[in-house]
């Protein structure tokens, strides 16, 4: 049997890194067909076809599938389900919106944020904000799941799959898109960046968060924030790293003024190297940091920026 993999496409732009990592997660399950849905997705479909391990790309063009609108997209995916043993997607906000709806349409359970594929029926996923890992076996006819991409390595290029145009269910006038307010940024994307610099409550204000951004730019890093920093209004919510935000696993994670609450650790503890800068030497972040610097961030970070 084959795997249907729903790609994340935004304004015609393929989330290549997320797709490449999800391909790595599902490669043991059979042939992989990637579904690209949305108006103007031609280039995204062509790009998906070049990734290693893709045997076919299905391209459903139509405005109804744009902006990740759940109703039409879920109906499209559910309509294709008959030929597949597994339906998967990277655990992006868009897929988290769509895939549980697909599962319910098929009368099967969904598994979200899968961190390991053990066999065709058995999967690992974190529960309780990452404080426990559950191994679950699904007896459903189709396994529908989202993949936590931070746990997988991106597959490379080298594929040359055919792109097949398809059509399917469309919207029934249930919902309509109004606008996206997505911050334009030259920085690397948070979940795929090689280096992430995050600030916490210790940064103290929105204005001082610029210091975190400056360090990030020096390292060509993405900017993250703890939930405490987001709740205090120092940083926007889409920078949030943690169980209720994004899960990242970069080569280098620099935590500045972050105490290290469990909910934050759940979002970054798989990083290869963790650096913590905090003036409180008892902060729990030091228990997971490879390199800890007990210092006032307002002297240490400017010094770091200068000397890097």
């Amino acid at each position: 049997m084959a795997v249907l993999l729903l790609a994340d496409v935004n304004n015609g732009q393929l989330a290549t890194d997320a797709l490449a990592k999800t391909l790595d997660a599902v490669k043991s399950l059979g042939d992989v067909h990637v579904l690209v849905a949305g108006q103007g997705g031609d280039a995204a479909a062509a790009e998906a076809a070049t990734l290693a391990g893709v045997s076919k790309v299905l391209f459903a063009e139509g405005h109804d599938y744009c902006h990740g609108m759940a109703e039409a997209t879920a109906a499209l995916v559910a309509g294709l389900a008959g030929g597949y043993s597994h339906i998967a997607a990277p655990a992006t906000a868009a897929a988290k919106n769509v895939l549980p709806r697909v599962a319910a349409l098929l009368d099967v359970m969904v598994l979200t944020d899968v961190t390991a594929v053990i066999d065709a029926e058995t999967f690992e996923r974190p529960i309780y904000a990452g404080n426990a890992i559950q191994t679950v076996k699904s007896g459903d006819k189709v396994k529908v799941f989202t993949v936590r991409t931070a746990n997988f390595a991106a597959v490379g290029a080298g594929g040359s799959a055919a792109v097949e145009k398809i059509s399917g269910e469309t919207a029934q006038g249930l919902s309509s898109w109004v606008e996206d307010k997505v911050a334009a940024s030259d920085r690397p994307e948070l979940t795929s960046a090689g280096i992430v610099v995050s600030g916490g409550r210790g940064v103290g204000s929105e204005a001082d968060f610029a210091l975190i951004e400056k360090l990030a730019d020096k390292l060509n890093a993405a900017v993250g924030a703890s939930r405490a920093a987001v709740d205090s209004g120092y940083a926007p919510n889409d920078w949030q790293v943690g169980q209720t935000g994004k899960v990242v696993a970069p080569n280098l994670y620099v935590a500045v003024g972050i105490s290290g609450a469990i909910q934050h650790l759940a979002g970054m503890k798989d990083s290869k190297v963790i650096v913590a800068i905090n003036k409180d030497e008892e902060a729990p972040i030091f228990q997971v940091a490879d390199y800890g610097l007990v210092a006032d961030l307002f002297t240490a970070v400017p010094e770091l920026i200068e000397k890097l």
Partner: protein
Amino acid sequence: MKVLVPVKRVIDYNVKVRVKADGSGVDLANVKMSMNPFDEIAVEEAIRLKEKGVATEVVVVSIGVKQSQETLRTALAMGADRAILIEAAADVHTDIEPLAVAKLLAGVVKEEAPGIVLAGKQAIDNDMNATGQMLAALLGWSQATFASELAVEGDKATVTREVDGGLQTISVALPAVVTVDLRLNEPRYASLPNIMKAKSKPLATKTPADYGVDVSPRLTVVKTTEPAGRKAGVKVGSVDELIAKLKDEAGVI
């Protein structure tokens, strides 16, 4: 318009989770339980809709063990009008799967005919983030997940959603399922008089059989384990030492 809010009784946000040594699950015996924090936000939003005159009645429903009554009483003390408990489990360790919960909620929706179902985006125990989407699918309704703003105008709702990279605004036809994210509001604390008053608000008890729903699980939990730990590294004495370690030892910059 009636608003239906599903609420789940989960381990309290501040309690340290302990995995049972035999790998059978998380220990919930004699642990403080509370309302799922995202559900609290949903209850708060429903009450605000009533205060604004948009909603006429706020009905809360919980599915689980008998003790979920306490969670429903908390919602009633916050300001909900009426509660429904669907007793679907005898053991606190039995987690009813989102698909079964969605089917039960669909049954409640058919009886209550709400204009909006306001739910938490995920429960902090199984972290599944699925029930709202599944309910919308079963009902054939529109859905707006991860809401950080909600405005109801006539037979439509405008919802701002937390998405990757920023915010998305969509318009959904009512009735709809809306799942709420952290920044939608700050839930109120129930006052003592309201806690007393909540004790006399109506609470109906039902069973899954009343809705003709089979709640037996589709997933088998093979084992539950502690995540791999991470060892603390070293403390460095200065910024220079930190840079040297990152360059020479770790090789990451």
